[in-house]
């Protein structure tokens, strides 16, 4: 647990421009060569946007974070999304009651059901998109080419596939994740067919 906290502190210092020398080289080489570490950096980056919006940073950290998020169009957009999301939550309020234990126990079953529905609805559109993304990462127009989905329907399916963790989007390119590849392999084994496109 302590190691996890230290690792994330290091990532945060990196994102805020606080590393140099060997530490800097180590983090950057790792983000290039270790997919999970790269994903962790992206996760911390997203949380840093939240911290900036919520005012959870020191004055110095805030200034550095503003520099970071204002550099690229994508990060500026992510910061805006964080601001809009916070505003939406403030207006909507907390939707929950407390989950009972049995609801928590059913959570995994609910997730599986949601994934199955996402893959099979609309004449297996989700499965086709996942298999296409697995064959090679694609942009939206390339993914759309293999389906009869309109723009709205395509976005909905992609959003749900991202929610389920089987696809991820980076800079407009959609990738099949490790989990997505695993799901496809399991389905291929169960059905005795290849889902290659």
């Amino acid at each position, binding site marked *: 647990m302590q190691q996890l906290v230290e690792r994330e502190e290091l990532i945060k210092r990196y994102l805020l421009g606080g590393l140099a020398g060997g530490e800097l080289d180590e983090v950057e080489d790792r983000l290039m060569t270790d997919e999970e570490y790269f994903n962790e950096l992206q996760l911390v980056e997203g*949380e840093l946007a939240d911290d900036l919006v919520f005012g959870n940073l020191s004055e110095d950290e805030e200034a550095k974070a503003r520099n970071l998020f204002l550099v690229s169009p994508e990060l500026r957009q992510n910061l805006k999304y964080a601001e809009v999301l916070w505003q939406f939550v403030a207006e909507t309020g907390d939707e929950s009651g407390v989950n009972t234990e049995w609801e928590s126990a059913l959570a995994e079953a609910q997730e599986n059901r949601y994934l199955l529905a996402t893959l099979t609805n609309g004449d297996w559109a989700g499965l086709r998109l996942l298999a296409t993304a697995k064959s090679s990462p694609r942009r939206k127009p390339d993914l759309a080419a293999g389906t009869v989905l309109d723009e709205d329907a395509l976005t909905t399916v992609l959003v749900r596939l991202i929610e389920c963790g089987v696809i991820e989007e980076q800079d407009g390119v959609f990738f099949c994740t490790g989990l997505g590849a695993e799901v496809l392999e399991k389905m291929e084994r169960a059905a005795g067919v290849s889902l290659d496109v």
Partner: protein
Amino acid sequence: MSDSRDTGAGSGLTEESLQLLLHWLDPDAERAARKYEEIRLSLIKLFVWRGFVDAESFADETIDRVVRKLPEIMPKYQGDPASYFYGMAKRIMRPLPPSKPSTLPTTTSEEDKSESEQMHECLSKCMGVLSPANRELILNYYAETKQDKINARRALASKLGMPVVNLRVRVHRIRSALHTCIGGCMAAREE
């Protein structure tokens, strides 16, 4: 493969040199294509995180320089090719200062307000696309973790019966899904 291979990977990348690069990355074509995309995206984020505005151009320049070196390095290089790309990126970064905030585009407050309003409407629509469980989770997460986030995350994760790390990954995925949906909605409004 995505458009980046056809148009984004620098002016010096011919079909022949691209095939050489892919073969160096992995003898399996599918794995090589994925590896190429991962490396390119990692390079873009690397330049972004280092503060360079035109990160895509720098990433493509890095790829071009590596490709030019391939005939020389392929017979003897050992190790992850991604590390070699990093080494080349460092050489490009070294003599250049990162971009300053004063070079960034500005918008009027009216444009900002209009964009925020549209984003809000799109977010509202996109919340409806999420599963009920994920919608509830993301609303709870943002409502409860505004301050003292460490304890709030721990409490929420415990309530949901999952480790904190799983909660954070799930929130990250939901956030990504919302970004994709909002981006699509905003693009559709511009058409």
